């Protein structure tokens, strides 16, 4: 299917979401595998592997030292067990920590030199790596120019290419893979890497510090509104291979950027590890929007295979009046452990978190956010919608902390859970810590089942049960879906329906 065909099909998606969902054959549409020759680092984890990854990325000495320190700390750490997820012990020595398509041995000079098989992979995923193309699913309004989205495509352990780099450079925006940034912009990387998520922050972040192979780097200079949306698309293709990407976004004073992240993986029987770190630094009056559609392979209906997704994401609103918005649609992964957080350090800074987490079959999701209010007049808002179906377990875990100096701050939290079926679970574990009295904190949570009246209404208008559930669930998620950039909102709506397919009855 060409990109153009894809676009036509996706047109008018609002009215046809349900129809479209039905037309998709499998439950997980990105489960195919790209037949490609891959070079692996030897299996297992050791100082030598860390050195090897650093060498493959042609890194300077300081970067290797940083990684090695991370590795040494990780060896002494224990895997956290507090999340409400259960999975067999992970053998960290039975994994590959570096996998690269052989054709990427020599870094291609331009996108034209990239292995056509890789380009084909992204095309099939609806991610155009050609600069004239636009992201699938979005057609410009009549008379309007195409909306551009710059893409950094990460395939297993390497970045395959980054589009629109030249055009972005004109605006002063740096958008490249993190390995390139380490070589080309060491002063920025040195200054900010690990400054939001310290090397030994937690078990998986520490592991990532040691073995991260690629990821994206974004720098928006002072006063610049990034001329297009930036996005990174992560694809795990190789078997028994973990992906450990690291993303660093720096928004200088008065700048703005919207960043999208997508991820998929082939359908395999053996679980695979994904441990990423995302750090965002936001200075005075800057704003960053970070949107994720996480659609890693969730495992089959018997709970075999799938991605273990252990991710640390944190934004540091260092500047006054800075703003961060996390939006996530979590439909994939066998196990999710992820808490995108905001440190509201600057006065009047704002953090927002909108999340839809869907768990079906044997999926387990433990996700939420932390809002740490340190500055005066800071604001945060949390809207979390958890949906459980099949035999899945879905947990919202969050922290709202008002420090003594965070005078006149506000938080509003709403977390709603929806249960579909009698064998799943929905849990809410919020921590609320208020240490001054001029701040106001409000937390609400509800758990319910799909409303009978709404179902009856849909059914009486001729929808079958699955369609009706998809519609009701889309309504339940609306507040979050509306917070997503347009490109993602459509994909997300469809994902919500696909993920629940087969959960009724």
């Amino acid at each position, binding site marked *: 299917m060409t990109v153009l065909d894809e676009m036509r099909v996706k047109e008018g998606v609002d009215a046809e979401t349900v129809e479209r969902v039905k037309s998709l054959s499998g439950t997980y549409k990105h489960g195919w595998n790209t037949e490609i020759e891959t070079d692996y680092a030897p299996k297992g984890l050791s100082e030598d592997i860390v050195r090897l990854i650093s060498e493959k990325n042609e890194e300077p000495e300081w970067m290797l030292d940083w990684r090695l320190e991370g590795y040494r700390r990780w060896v002494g750490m224990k895997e956290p067990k507090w999340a409400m997820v259960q999975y067999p012990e992970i053998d960290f020595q039975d994994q590959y920590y570096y996998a690269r398509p052989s054709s990427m041995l020599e870094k291609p000079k331009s996108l034209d030199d990239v292995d056509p098989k890789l380009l084909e992979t992204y095309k099939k995923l609806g991610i155009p790596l050609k600069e004239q193309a636009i992201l699938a699913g979005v057609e410009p309004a009549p008379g309007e120019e195409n909306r551009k989205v710059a893409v950094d495509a990460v395939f297993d352990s390497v970045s395959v290419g980054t589009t629109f780099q030249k055009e972005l450079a004109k605006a002063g925006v740096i958008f490249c893979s993190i390995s390139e940034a380490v070589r080309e912009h060491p002063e920025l990387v040195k200054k900010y890497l690990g400054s939001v998520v310290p090397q030994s922050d937690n078990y998986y972040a520490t592991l990532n510090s040691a073995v991260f192979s690629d990821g994206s780097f974004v720098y928006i200079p002072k006063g610049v509104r990034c001329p297009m949306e930036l996005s990174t698309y992560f694809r795990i293709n190789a078997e028994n291979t973990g992906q450990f990407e690291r993303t660093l976004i720096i928004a200088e004073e008065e700048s703005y950027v919207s960043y999208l992240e997508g991820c998929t993986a082939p359908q395999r029987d053996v679980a695979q590890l994904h441990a990423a770190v995302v750090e965002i630094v936001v200075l005075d009056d800057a704003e960053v929007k970070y949107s994720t559609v996480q659609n890693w392979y969730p495992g089959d209906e018997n709970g075999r295979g799938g991605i273990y997704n252990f991710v640390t994401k944190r934004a540091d609103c260092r500047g006054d009046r800075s703003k961060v918005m996390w939006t996530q649609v979590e439909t994939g992964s066998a196990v999710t452990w992820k808490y995108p957080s905001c440190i509201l350090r600057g006065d009047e800074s704002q953090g927002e978190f909108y999340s839809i987490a869907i768990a079906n079959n044997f999926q387990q999701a433990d996700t939420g956010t932390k809002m740490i209010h340190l500055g005066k007049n800071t604001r945060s808002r949390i809207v979390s919608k958890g949906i459980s179906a099949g035999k899945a377990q879905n947990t919202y875990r969050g922290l709202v902390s008002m420090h003594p100096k965070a005078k006149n701050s506000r938080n509003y939290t709403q977390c709603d859970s929806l249960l579909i079926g009698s064998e799943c679970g929905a849990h809410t574990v919020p921590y609320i810590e*208020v240490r001054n009295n001029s701040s106001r904190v409000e937390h609400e949570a509800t*758990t319910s089942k799909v409303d009978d009246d709404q179902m009856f209404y849909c059914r009486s208008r001729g929808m079958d049960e699955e369609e009706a559930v998809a519609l009701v669930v889309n309504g339940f998620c609306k507040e979050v879906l509306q917070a997503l950039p347009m490109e993602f909102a459509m994909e997300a709506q469809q994902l919500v329906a696909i993920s629940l397919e087969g959960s009724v009855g």
Partner: protein
Amino acid sequence: MAADPKQQATDERLAALTLPEGGGWLGAARKDALGRLQAVRLPGRRDEYWRYTNPTPLVQTAPALDVPDQVEDPFAGLDTLVVTIDGDDISVPDTVPDGLEIGTLRNAAGADIHWAKDVYGRREAAGSRPVSRPLAMLNSAFATNGLVIRATGQVTQPIHIRTTGGTDPILHHVVKVESGASVTLLESGVAGARSNIVTEIEVADTGTFHHIRVDGPVRARHVNTHLFARLGTESTFKSFTLSAHGALTRNEAVIELTGDDAVSHIAGAAFGQGDFHHDDTVFVTHDAENCESRQVYKKVLRDGAVGVFQGKILVKEGAQKTDGYQISQSLLLDDDSVFLAKPELEIYADDVACSHGSTTGAIDETALFYLRSRGVPERDATNLLVLSFLAEAVEEIEDEGLRAHVSERLADWLSRD
């Protein structure tokens, strides 16, 4: 390797205590509890369940405070059946209303067969899963006395347990409400500088149990209580606690709804200042269909006081048509006070309606201004607003007379602050 601080604290405390003499059913229950305690050890500062409250004053071998003065009787003037506990000496009234049996644990221990055998330590052990409650285990092992109360009919006169004297009592009460029976239990007084009180309650099908506890305005006291309740089909359990001051209070309530159509309401109103640290930890388990549970907790905090609420609703698989509600709110009267909350839901059934809410903030300036502009002095205006804030919890007391009585005491104590 340095000794484990939890192990060390447990060893020290156990060395300072003696297992009360006597074998029989109580001796066996004590040994069982001791074994369980030794396996989990006493709580430490790093335990997740104690993240907001330092257990040290409750764990250490001797109380850190002097024995406080006695306070007035908050239930004075009411027609109650008073049972006085002085330290661990208990005087039970000679005559009790029909349908009621009251005895002491000491006496019950001597009986070969006693109904309390099926409750003592059993509810506590069940309530220690999945979260262990080591201070309750300590209590089951070392309690020196307590009341055994059994209601077989509709008892209209409330039983009033009035504690006085003692320095560091460990008391363990056992209550059984038989099918169709009902009883109201009132608690007041000061039990030493530090107290550890466990109450195990079994409410049989269609039984009703009401409980009102008033901890009067004594500043220097360390209190640790546990309520363990199991509710049968169509039974009712309602408990309310008023806490005025106290240096450290940890009130745990563990309620299991095991019969269909059971109702459980638990509520607390607390106010304090300075070193006041008040922790309500509640765990409600729904293990039957069509049950209703409510948790309503309100705290007013001043001058650096700390309020803690850890509440959980667990709905087990199959507990369909559950209606679970939980609210925790705090009013911070100044910038030094702190409220820490962890309101949890854990749900494994789909046809349920569960909700929780938690809010924290300062007094409503507009309301305060309104009252002030009508000539109400600031202090009185604040007290009025505090009273109205706490009222939602007090209203959980079902009996109108008792509710009015408790409200009056609350208003009086607030005005004296």
